[in-house]
């Protein structure tokens, strides 16, 4: 496992924590159902104006790991397979062919996958509308996919999530510099690509839907990648319906139509709008006003929170244009199982009873920000257990039960609480400061009298504390995790597997190494896709939740606003935003 997986999480959490606090979905789901507009009624042309706050992390598909970057990638980079642009969440998770003619053919044990490329797929211009000779307008070949995956492992590129691909045969030799290529990627001809894996991976197509697998013209990019720090980032070549016409960091991103893109080869993207005009650097509240006022169509990394959300919900017009859907993220408080007294199961469970999850939810912005979590895996993901049927630390209103908690403390051998010093790390940015304070108060009530509270600026709690086991962070209150793709593997394996406790870049913050949990995760990982695998993840979810190492407290919703000019806004869970490649604008002429 590499140390990089948390990055995407930052994007999500940053967006959520700093800006999105809450979302408008009332339980009946009225405000959240996407409009199903027949394709013929969606206007073609016009400019999609996006009000954004922060910039993409990278333009390079190999490195980008923010949801907002992936939102951009949806229109600029195509992958072998992709998620369909449909409203139904179940259907969304059924991959469809994109550059490939099908969703891949596995061998018997899923350790070998074969894809065939479509005809008529071509590279577009590089960033800045640069027509690259020998690239722009030329067909995309299997070699371009191969190189894209190889460069994930080139240090100058800095791939975002190489751990999803290091099961390809020959990866180790390539990383070590003993081989010029990854032998496990076979390209018998320009149209065919075969992946030989060191272990079975039923979810391989999901990994082929992530931007890192988008084709990169080998000859062109290799020049940049040979430098110390690859500058392909500023020269990305488009394969989707749009290319990046302008990228002024922290200011502006403009996408324009890629004329080389052939709509006949693409069953997913409709690409109604001509131009995407994405302004960055908005103050959250200003951005919200702009979108709600119709100056921009979509808020990206800009969403109503606190009083703005209250206002939005109170206004029938505005609340109609609010998407509030699960983002497949879980926020949690973790307890470091290697630090006394959290090495005691009873004490961890006591904390699980003591913490007022309902208050954390209120501080986040109320029920609208998502459901209070009762276990680790969020709804919408295989392995999720609904609160009604499974709620091991459930109390009335989820406000905690201090008496029960104190009993467990006593059972764990700490009847008078614990007065040793414990490093308690939250984050300073609102509302994280409030989470920390709420948890601190709960723990104090439970008898933890000597908490050393640190609240660094977000996301330093990760980079400087949680991810470094040496720091011995006992309690972390600003942790959260989002799926990479819809399989609980992307949740439980990095976070609960004892094998994944790393010296730096650690994700298993609780440093839990519980044989039963490890076993359950391993079993589920090996189980082929289907109900059985879901059941296996459910079991792992139970065991992990009851270990008490986490106090999961919310399954976040994503709150998105759009203007009345936007037609057919469909929420896509893959990048947790409006699937804009099938949306149109009424301002089109």
């Amino acid at each position, binding site marked *: 496992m590499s*140390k*990089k997986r948390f*990055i995407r999480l*930052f994007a999500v959490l*940053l967006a959520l924590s*700093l800006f999105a606090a809450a979302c408008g979905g009332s339980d009946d789901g009225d405000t959240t159902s996407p409009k199903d507009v027949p394709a013929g009624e969606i206007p073609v042309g016009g400019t999609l104006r996006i009000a954004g706050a*922060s*910039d993409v*992390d990278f333009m390079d598909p190999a490195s980008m790991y923010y949801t907002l970057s992936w939102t951009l990638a949806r229109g600029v980079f195509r992958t072998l397979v992709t998620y369909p642009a449909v409203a139904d969440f179940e259907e969304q998770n059924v991959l469809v062919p994109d550059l490939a003619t099908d969703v891949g053919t596995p061998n018997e044990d899923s350790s070998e996958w074969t894809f065939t490329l479509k005809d008529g797929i071509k590279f577009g211009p590089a960033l800045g509308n640069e027509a690259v000779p020998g690239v722009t307008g030329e067909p995309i070949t299997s070699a371009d996919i191969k190189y894209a995956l190889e460069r994930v492992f080139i*240090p*100058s*590129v*800095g791939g975002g999530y190489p751990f999803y691909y290091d099961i390809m045969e020959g990866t180790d030799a390539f990383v070590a510099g003993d081989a010029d290529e990854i032998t496990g990627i076979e390209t018998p001809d320009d149209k065919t690509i075969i992946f030989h894996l060191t272990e079975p991976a039923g979810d391989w197509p999901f990994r082929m839907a992530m931007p890192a697998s988008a084709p990169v013209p080998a000859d062109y990019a290799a020049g940049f990648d040979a430098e*110390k*720090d690859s500058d392909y*980032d500023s020269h990305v070549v488009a394969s989707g319906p749009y290319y990046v016409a302008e990228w002024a*960091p*922290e200011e502006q991103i403009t996408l324009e139509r890629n004329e080389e893109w052939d709509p006949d080869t693409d069953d997913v993207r409709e690409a109604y709008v001509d131009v995407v005009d994405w302004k960055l*650097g908005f*103050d959250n*509240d*200003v951005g919200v*006003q702009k979108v709600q006022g119709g100056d921009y169509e979509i808020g990206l990394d800009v969403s109503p929170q606190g009083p703005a959300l209250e206002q939005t919900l109170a206004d029938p017009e505005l609340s109609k244009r609010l998407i509030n859907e699960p983002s497949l993220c879980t926020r949690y408080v973790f307890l470091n199982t290697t630090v006394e007294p959290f090495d005691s199961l009873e004490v961890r469970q006591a904390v699980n009873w003591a913490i007022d999850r309902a208050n954390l939810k209120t501080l986040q912005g109320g029920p609208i920000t998502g459901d209070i979590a009762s276990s680790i895996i969020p709804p919408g993901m295989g392995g999720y257990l609904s609160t009604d049927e499974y709620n091991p630390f459930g109390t009335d209103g989820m406000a905690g039960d201090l008496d029960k908690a104190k009993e467990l403390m006593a059972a764990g051998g700490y009847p008078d609480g614990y007065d040793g010093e414990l490093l308690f790390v939250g984050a300073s*940015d609102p509302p994280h400061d409030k989470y920390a304070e709420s948890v601190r108060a709960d723990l104090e009530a439970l008898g933890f009298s000597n908490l050393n509270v640190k609240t660094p*600026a*977000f*996301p*330093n709690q990760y*980079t*400087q504390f949680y991810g470094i086991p040496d720091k011995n962070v006992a309690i972390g209150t600003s942790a959260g995790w989002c799926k990479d793709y819809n399989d609980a593997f992307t949740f439980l394996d990095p976070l609960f597997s004892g094998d994944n406790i790393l010296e*730096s870049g650690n994700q298993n913050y609780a440093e839990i190494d519980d044989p039963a949990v490890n076993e359950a995760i391993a079993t589920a990982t090996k189980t082929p896709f289907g109900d059985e695998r879901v059941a296996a993840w459910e079991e792992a979810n139970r065991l992990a939740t009851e270990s008490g190492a986490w106090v999961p407290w919310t399954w976040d919703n994503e709150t998105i606003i759009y203007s009345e000019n936007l037609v057919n806004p469909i929420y896509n869970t893959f990048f947790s935003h409006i699937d804009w490649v099938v949306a149109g604008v009424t301002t089109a002429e």
Partner: protein
Amino acid sequence: MLQYVIRRLLWSFVMVMLVVMVVFLIFFVLPGGTGRKEDGRASPVAVMMAGRNPRPELVKNIEERLGLDRPVYVQFGRYVWNALHGDLGYSYQSQIDVREAVFHRLPATASLAFGASIVWLLIGIPIGIISALKRRSLLDRGSMLFALIGVSMPTFWLGLIAIFYFDSNLNVYSVGDYASITDNPAQWFATMWLPWLVLAVTFAAFYTRMVRGNMLEVQSEDYIRTARAKGLKERSVIRHILRSALTPVVTMYGLDLGILLGGAIITERIFNIPGIGLLAVDAISSSDLPIILGTTLFAAMFVILANLIVDVVYASLDPRVRYS
């Protein structure tokens, strides 16, 4: 005079070096060592510089770029060398040259600083003069009380009250809709007038007090008595007073402006004006250390530059400095 200017220039240079040293100390030495740890863990400085996304490759790259594996004095030399070339560093996280970012933000900050300064001069100087001339009058007492209140009013509170009143209650102002003066002058003005007023209050109050104080002090100077004794008209006498009383205002104005041009952090933050101050504040929340470092250095340079200009201007106004 020339000699004086050269002396000031040299001194400014020394100041720049010293400031660079202080900044270097804070950012390179304090975080806990620059080099790689013995166990091979990355240099803390490089990790901080990398920002939100410290990929090992990037960290390594930064280590190399900044020469963090070299002895501290080499690093310092390299840092100074860069600073002297106007290189404020590079933000790996935002992938922008810090100097470019700063200069890009300068117009907004300058709009705020110059606009506000005009307001406070227009308020502070006349009231200060009239108060001094009508000493002990009702007007004097009133404006002095208001000045004291103004001096005591924290900008961030006043700003919030102003927003509460003008934005949410009266709806005559909208926070954070900044447009540059060249793009959209009307919009620019619409977003700037309230920040100008808010920022100007404290300064106006201070200038009022200062001008009045200077005037009173000068009024009791012997040379003003001389001016009266030789039969000058009152208007000319006042001119004599102003000449002395307002000269220091020029100095102070230059310094205040210099400091504000380095980023009016609080006001920019409250009114969401995308200036240098906001750049710094945002950099803090995204842990973008190179930007924080760069803006700090830049602001310090501005203060030193302002000092230099003010010294020279003052010298041209005050013959005692000019001819000594």
